[in-house]
C-alpha cells in the first residue's frame, strides 16, 4: 500500500476533524497539568492547515505536508506549534519526489520527524511530552512491514495512555512534578489523534 496525494490531504482533513471534535477534551487535559490552551491551539492550527490545503491543487505529498507544516508553525503557537511544525516539515522533506508515498519512505520520514522534534524541544523519551507518542510510533513503523490502520490506531492509543505513568520533566507539566502522574499528556493526546486520522485514511483504503 502507498499514500497518494489525496490520501495525505485526507489525513490532514481527518486530523483536523478529530481534533475539532476533541478540542474541549484536549483543553481539559491541559488545564490539569498545563495552562489550558492546548485544545484551542491545535484546533486553531489544524483548522487553518485544512483550509490552506483545501485551497491548493496539489500534485505532490511533500507540498501538502510542507504547507501543513508552515501553517501549523504560524498558527498554533505555544510549545506544540513549533514541534508539530517541525514534524510535518521533516516528513515533507523525507517524502519529496516519492509519490505515492510507500511504507519505507513514510517510515523514514517518521524517524526524521522524531529526530526533529527531539532536537527542537530537547526532550527525550519518557519526559511525558508528545515525543512519547511520535517516538514509539516511529519504532512501531520500523518493526512492521506495511500500513495497518487498526494496529496504528491501537499502538498510538497505547503510547498516549502510557504517558499517564510518566512524571513530566519538560514543558509546562514539569512544574507539577509528581502531581503530573496519572494524567495524560495533552500533546500526546493530540498526536494520538493525528495517528488515528492516518489509521482511518488507511482503513478506508483497504
Amino acid at each position, binding site marked *: 500500500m502507498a499514500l497518494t496525494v489525496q490520501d495525505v490531504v485526507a489525513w490532514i482533513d481527518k486530523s483536523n476533524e478529530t481534533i475539532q471534535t476533541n478540542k474541549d477534551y484536549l*483543553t481539559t487535559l491541559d*488545564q490539569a497539568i*498545563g*495552562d*489550558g*490552551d492546548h*485544545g*484551542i*491551539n491545535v484546533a*486553531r492550527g489544524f483548522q487553518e492547515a485544512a483550509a490552506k490545503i483545501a485551497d491548493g491543487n496539489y500534485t505532490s505529498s511533500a507540498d501538502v505536508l510542507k504547507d501543513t507544516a508552515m501553517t501549523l*508553525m*504560524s*498558527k*498554533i*503557537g*505555544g*510549545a*506544540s*506549534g*513549533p*514541534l508539530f511544525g517541525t514534524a510535518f516539515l521533516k516528513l515533507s522533506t523525507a517524502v519529496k519526489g516519492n509519490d505515492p508515498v510507500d511504507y519505507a519512505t513514510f517510515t523514514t520520514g517518521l524517524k526524521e520527524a522524531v529526530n526533529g522534534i527531539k532536537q*527542537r*524541544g530537547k526532550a527525550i523519551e519518557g519526559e511525558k511530552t508528545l515525543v512519547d507518542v511520535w517516538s514509539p510510533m516511529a519504532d512501531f513503523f520500523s518493526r512492521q512491514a506495511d500500513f495497518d490502520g487498526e494496529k496504528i490506531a491501537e499502538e498510538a492509543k497505547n503510547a498516549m495512555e502510557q504517558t499517564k505513568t510518566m512524571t513530566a520533566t*519538560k*514543558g*509546562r507539566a*514539569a*512544574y*507539577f512534578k509528581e502531581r503530573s502522574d496519572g494524567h495524560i499528556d495533552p500533546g500526546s493526546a493530540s498526536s494520538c489523534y493525528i495517528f488515528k486520522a492516518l489509521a482511518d485514511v488507511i482503513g478506508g483504503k483497504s
Partner: protein
Amino acid sequence: MKKIINDPNEVVQDMAAGLIAAHPDELQQLPGTTVIAKSNAPIKNKVAIVSGGGSGHEPAHAGYVGKGMLDAAVAGEVFTSPTPDQIFEAIKAVDGGAGVCLVIKNYTGDVLNFEMAAELAEAEGIDVEKVVVNDDVAVDEESSRRGIAGTVLVHKVAGAKAEQGGTLKEVKAAAEKVVENVRSMGMALTPCTVPAAGTPSFQLGENEMEIGIGIHGESGIERKSITTADDIAKELTDRILDDFDFTGGDVAVMINGLGSTPEMELYIVNKQVQAILAEKGITVYTTFVGEYMTSLEMTGCSVTLLKLDDELKTLLNEPSQAPAFRS
C-alpha cells in the same frame, strides 16, 4: 465566565486595536500581525529590544513599548506563545542595523518560537541575541524556572542600555546581569479563565490559596489555608532570600498584582516586605508597586527582588516613555 469581550477568539486583535487607538502617535500595529512597535521604528544604529509572549499578562508586553524600553512586543493568543513568523516580522520592523535583543520568558513555547524566529532573522543577516528570563524561584530546577514579573526589569534595563548607545553585546550583558540578579515568587487566591476556554484553569476552596503560582493559570507548588498579608509577604520573601544572596548590594523591589488584587492590598504586602528587608539589613533603592505582569483576572501577587550595582541603578533611573512604565 464574566468578561467584557466580544468574540473570545478575537480578544488579542481587539485589544491591539484598542491599544493603538489609545496611543496613535507612539505605537503602531504591524499590518496583518499582532506585533506592536514604536511608530518611529526602526531607529538607525540603536540596538532594538523585542519581547513578547502569550497575551493575558497586560500591560506586558505591549505596554512596555516606548522610548527607553521595548521597540516591539509580539502578542500571542492568550497564554500561548506567539509564532515564529510574527516574531520575525517584529525583528525585521525594528532592526536599525545595530542588531536586535530578544527578551524571552523561560517557557518551552516562548523559547522554541523565539529561537525559530531568531534563526529566520539570522538567515536574513540580522544580528540577534537572546536573553532568557527565569526569575521564578517557585520552580526548583533552574533550567525550567519560569520568567515572571522580573522580566519587566529586564525590559527596563535592556531598553535603557540600548538608548544609551550600547552595542548588541553590551545590551545583552546588561540584560543578563538583571537575569542573574533577579528573583521572584508569586501566590494566588483565585484562578483565572482563558476567554476561549470559558472555564477556570483550576479550583481553589473558599479558604485556600496557592503558593508558587505561575502566570498562566498553572497551579502552584503548594496549596494552603489563607493567612495574613504579613505571612504571605514573609513566605514569598523568605523563599527569594533563601535562593540568592541579596546582602551586600542595594535592591529594587517589585510588588506585582496578578490582575484582581486591589492596589491597597499590594501596598499592605509591600509594607511587610520592606520590614523584612530592613530587618535583614538589605537596603531598598527603589520600589515598584502595581500591575506589571498579570494573569488575566487572577487574584494574587508576586514579590520580585533585584540586586543592584551602579550600572543597574543608572539604567533603572533612565527615563522611559512606555505607556505602562513612565519614569
